[in-house]
């Protein structure tokens, strides 16, 4: 009797291990990593620079995915992240390059604007009960329009139009250089460091703060959450607001990396962000998931693309493979339930 129970417990445990979404996500990452070791492109995969560049490349997407994770756990979606990135990239360049604002002013201004736009989506969704898909679709179009309006449709670069009609190149502000630099003997990009900070913020919110509990509860069962006395509208406002805040961070990084504010920047980034969240294993239905999953999901996509590119696989095949991987990841999620 006793031994039988023991055996059963062990098999339960094993099932739990398999069920753990974090382990599943990690297994996918290891798999991709092994593929990298096999197709190492004459040892290129074994150089730290490859990994550093992968992390640097994925950082902006992953920062967007951080906000997206919170929104998706709350059973929402935010399609406006790419546009908000574009808008804040334009604004940051406008403020820093053309208006020559101090970064201490330009940076907070952009972050506040991003958070405000996000909170506006949250308000439409929470207060006026517009479906997240529709509300953020509207915000996506609106923010893109606004990016084009403030930039006049031009890329905002270091070439500043003078009153006499000529262009004069201004110096690149140090904040741009800093955000675009690498630290620790050129071994880690600053944007990657910023990504780590964003992940940490999300982790604290989701696991340490009451707010995080609200996010999970609303995503798991909104009506039960409301009847349990959880402030649903306020939580949505804050969650989408924070997502907008992360968009602004990503937008600033993007502007620094490109040395300009492109009103077209961030097109379709929302899809990449969603893909990262889904591949990580956060449930699109809400209520289940975590930021660790998203980080692993970002690395999985990052490595996949890196491996394909160092092996000189063409863009066409790269896109098709990525699509297939997303489907595979969703199947993985389904079998868990």
């Amino acid at each position, binding site marked *: 009797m006793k031994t039988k129970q023991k055996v059963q417990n062990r098999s339960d445990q094993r099932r739990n291990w398999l069920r753990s979404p974090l382990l599943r996500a990690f297994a996918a990452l290891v798999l991709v990593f092994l593929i990298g070791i096999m197709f190492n492109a004459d040892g290129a995969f074994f150089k730290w620079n490859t990994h550093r560049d992968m992390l640097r490349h994925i950082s902006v997407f992953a920062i967007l995915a951080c906000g997206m994770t919170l929104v998706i756990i709350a059973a929402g979606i935010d399609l406006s992240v790419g546009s908000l990135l574009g808008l804040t990239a334009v604004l940051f360049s406008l403020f820093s390059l053309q208006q020559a604002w101090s970064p201490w002013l330009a940076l907070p201004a952009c972050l506040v604007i991003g958070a405000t736009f996000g909170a506006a989506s949250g308000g439409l969704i929470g207060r006026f009960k517009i479906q997240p898909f529709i509300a953020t679709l509207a915000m996506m179009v609106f923010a893109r329009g606004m990016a084009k309006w403030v930039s006049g449709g031009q890329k905002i670069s270091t070439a500043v139009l003078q009153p006499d009609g000529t262009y004069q190149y201004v110096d690149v502000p140090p904040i741009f250089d800093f955000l675009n630099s690498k630290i620790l003997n050129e071994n880690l990009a600053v944007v990657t460091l910023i990504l780590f900070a964003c992940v940490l913020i999300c982790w604290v919110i989701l696991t340490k703060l009451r707010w995080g*509990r609200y996010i999970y509860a609303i995503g798991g069962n909104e009506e039960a959450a409301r009847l349990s006395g959880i402030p649903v509208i306020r939580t949505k406002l804050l969650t989408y607001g924070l997502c907008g805040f992360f968009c602004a961070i990503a937008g600033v990084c993007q502007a620094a990396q490109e040395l300009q504010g492109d009103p077209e920047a961030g097109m379709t980034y929302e899809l990449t962000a969603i893909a990262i969240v889904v591949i990580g294993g956060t449930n699109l239905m809400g209520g289940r998931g975590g930021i660790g999953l998203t980080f692993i999901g970002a690395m999985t996509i990052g490595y996949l693309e890196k491996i394909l590119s160092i092996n000189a696989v063409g863009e066409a095949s790269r896109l098709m493979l990525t699509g297939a991987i997303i489907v595979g990841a969703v199947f993985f999620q389904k079998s868990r339930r």
Partner: protein
Amino acid sequence: MMSTEHTETILQMEHITKSFSGVKVLEDVFFDLNPGEVHVLAGENGAGKTTLIKILAGVHTDFEGEIQLNGQSIRFKNPHDAAESGISSIHQDMSLISAMTVVDNIFLGREHAHANVWMNYRTQKEKAQKLLAQLGIDVNLMLPVEEYPVSVRQMIEIAKALAYDARIIIMDEPTSALNELEVKQLFQIIQDLKQKKYGIIYISHRLEEIYEISDRISVLRDGKYVGTAKADDLSPQELIRWMVGREINQQFPDRTPATGEERLRIENLYLPDPTGTKEWVVEDVSLSLNAGEILGIAGLRGSGNSELFHGLFGTYGKSVDGIVRLDGKPFKIQSPIQSIKHGLVLLTNDRKGTGLVLPMNIIRNISLSSLRAYSPGGWMQIQKENNAAQDHIEAFGIKAQSMHQEVETVSGGNQQKVVLAKWLETHPKVLLLDEPTLGVDVGAKHDIYTLMNQWTAQGMAILLITSELPELLAMSDRIMVMHRGRITAEFKKAEATQEKIIHAAMGEEKTA
């Protein structure tokens, strides 16, 4: 059989037995139906009526026993199969697709199409027109059904059944959302259908209705067949005895009421219908509840008792009209947040839909309503939260492999205890319990009764809704009965009987 024309019964169900995961919900049940008759299927909630109907409609295909249709043995593989054989059901939660037009709904799944591909709208429209004229209702075929009130939608459902060439029409509480006039209209149509030799299976909880419409009555009780009789031969008293006359074999803990000061007072409470089909769902309700008291609120589904609870709790916001006092102080109903803060909490009758956050674990569900107590400044004190939850888990006897298990994966009884623990955690003064033992096994039921007694002994007050009459009688110190949004009767514990309560709940004259 030579010809189906001369067989008297069109439907014969014999020795029907059905189990859900080892529990028999129907045992050796018999039912038959003649053409041109209304055969009422009666019984308490949980007696097995719905299961029997679902077997007939091809929803449940895994059962023992035999179904004969026009003298021929038949076994449906799926609902579509049953519909093809001429069996249509009209549900209380209707099966119309609200955004589709009337005509599209009538022919849903049976579209008239050339070569099965190209829609033939003209014949559909002509045929629908004919059907609706036959039913004597005038609707615009091209409008979405959501434009019409419930009563008309019900007629459209009947038209849909007729379009399927149904010979047997099942009506499951068709009048629950209708007013008196609409009920009359429906009954007129039922009379017409009888004339045309349709067989109608009719489920209702309303006595007056049963006697107005039925030719024969069959009764189920606890999944067993009690009997069938002609409506004229079965007195209402006898029918009630058939429905509820079981021996009470459940153990209820002894209850010694210790009533104290008045905790909750409601005066002239009105609640507008949140769905907008009727004007009021709760009308002119006044009651008083003392500390340590359990007041039972009896009533059938749709009587407004659940809505009364939700209204009090603030689910519908500030739309409630009336005076509420908590511990003598005026209480303004605003929102669940405010009600919880003031010590008024609601256990809803749908724990999966509105009680639990299923993907969350047991501990987090328990602390859900009192998170502020564990998060000064917004930072969660996880250890404190775990300890408090652990105390409740022991006090409530919640059994699970791990307290970090998703609440979705534990049994119904344990889930219910988790919801109760969540509310106890908020230190309430008044508990509104809507079906606290719904779908809970006998052992857990007993635990919950014991807990209720403990809480009232501590001075909490409980308003109780339960559709299980023995439970209501055993646990309540007083019982009020609601019918169509109003309080129709009040009984002291000593004078209450199941018969009296059913009479009042079905809207019979007040028993003096």
